[in-house]
């Protein structure tokens, strides 16, 4: 797995490349938590080059979104973890596990970043 992190003005964009499994999920968790620790709670995960995700990765996603959303400026504005680009195989995992309705999923990174 490879993580490409870009710090934008209001949002952090993380491109997740390759395989997120039990061996690599902790790295993704660590990066997201380090952003939270800095007070950065608006994250877009770009999955366009994500090849594979298993349950430890799903777990990181769910915990991250729960945590990000605890951070609020107003009722309308606050933290979130949103997803851009869901390849077919990953979408299938999302559909099987009900994750499709747990996350805001956008067609591209521009749209996802702009949603904040």
């Amino acid at each position: 797995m490879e993580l490409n992190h870009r710090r934008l003005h209001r949002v952090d964009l993380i491109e997740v490349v390759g395989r997120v499994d039990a061996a690599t999920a902790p790295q993704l968790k660590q990066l997201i938590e380090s952003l939270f620790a800095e007070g950065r709670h608006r994250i877009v995960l770009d999955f366009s080059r994500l090849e594979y995700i298993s349950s430890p990765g799903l777990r990181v996603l769910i915990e991250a979104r729960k945590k990000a959303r605890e951070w609020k400026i107003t009722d309308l504005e606050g933290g979130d973890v949103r997803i851009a680009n869901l390849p077919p195989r990953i979408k299938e995992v999302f559909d099987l596990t009900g994750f499709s309705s747990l996350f805001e999923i956008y067609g591209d990174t521009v749209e996802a970043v702009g949603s904040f």
Partner: protein
Amino acid sequence: MENSITLTADLDALAKISAFITTAAERCGLDERATWQVQLAVDEAVTNVIQHAYDPDQPGDLTLSWQCCDHRFIVTVRDHGRQFDPSAVPTPDITSPLEERQVGGLGIYLITRLMDEVRFEFSPQGGNLLTMVKYLPQDQPASPDDVLVIPIHDRIDALTAPRLTSMVSEQIGKGARQIVLDLSNVSFLSSSGLRALLLIRKELMTLGGELRLAALQPQVYEVFTITGFTQVFNLHPSVAEARAACAQRH
């Protein structure tokens, strides 16, 4: 190619096992999607062993084996760690909202959704043995008079019924009209399962076909007698008799 691999149950094993099982599944003739499903199910199973069977600082062995026979790709995962009790893992409610969503249990859930048959066994000598089966695509474009016998190897309940329905629908889509479900290995039928069977029967009848159920275990037969559905379904003591009934009809 060796059809078994034994590794220390640590995180380094995941990538090796993934590569091993992917090659095996392709050799066995699984298509790209089925291969991916097997890969994910096996990865979840092995992750489960790594995280729960052994103490992290003292990992033991795990053995992955596969075989390809009778239109099935069969994978087993064996370990000698703590006994695994699948009934102790709650089935995740995949419809619950984020705030209430539990993070655990997804691995086992995915395995049952991705594979056609899943069995957990434990013995003090053999340890934990997980058997997972993926059916190979059967390429018999059926003529309406052909009898298709489908062996069912699982409970038929709310969890497994959708898979059963989609599997049979697929066969109907390929042209099967005379379908016999061999229930000899079905130990449990729930009301959701019964409903699924009714829907399959209806789908076949509207197409001029017929559903037959064969070799019911006594406790499954009882579900039919209690509900009065013995009159609705074609029930047969054996697959042979179900076949004979199909033949007689024509």
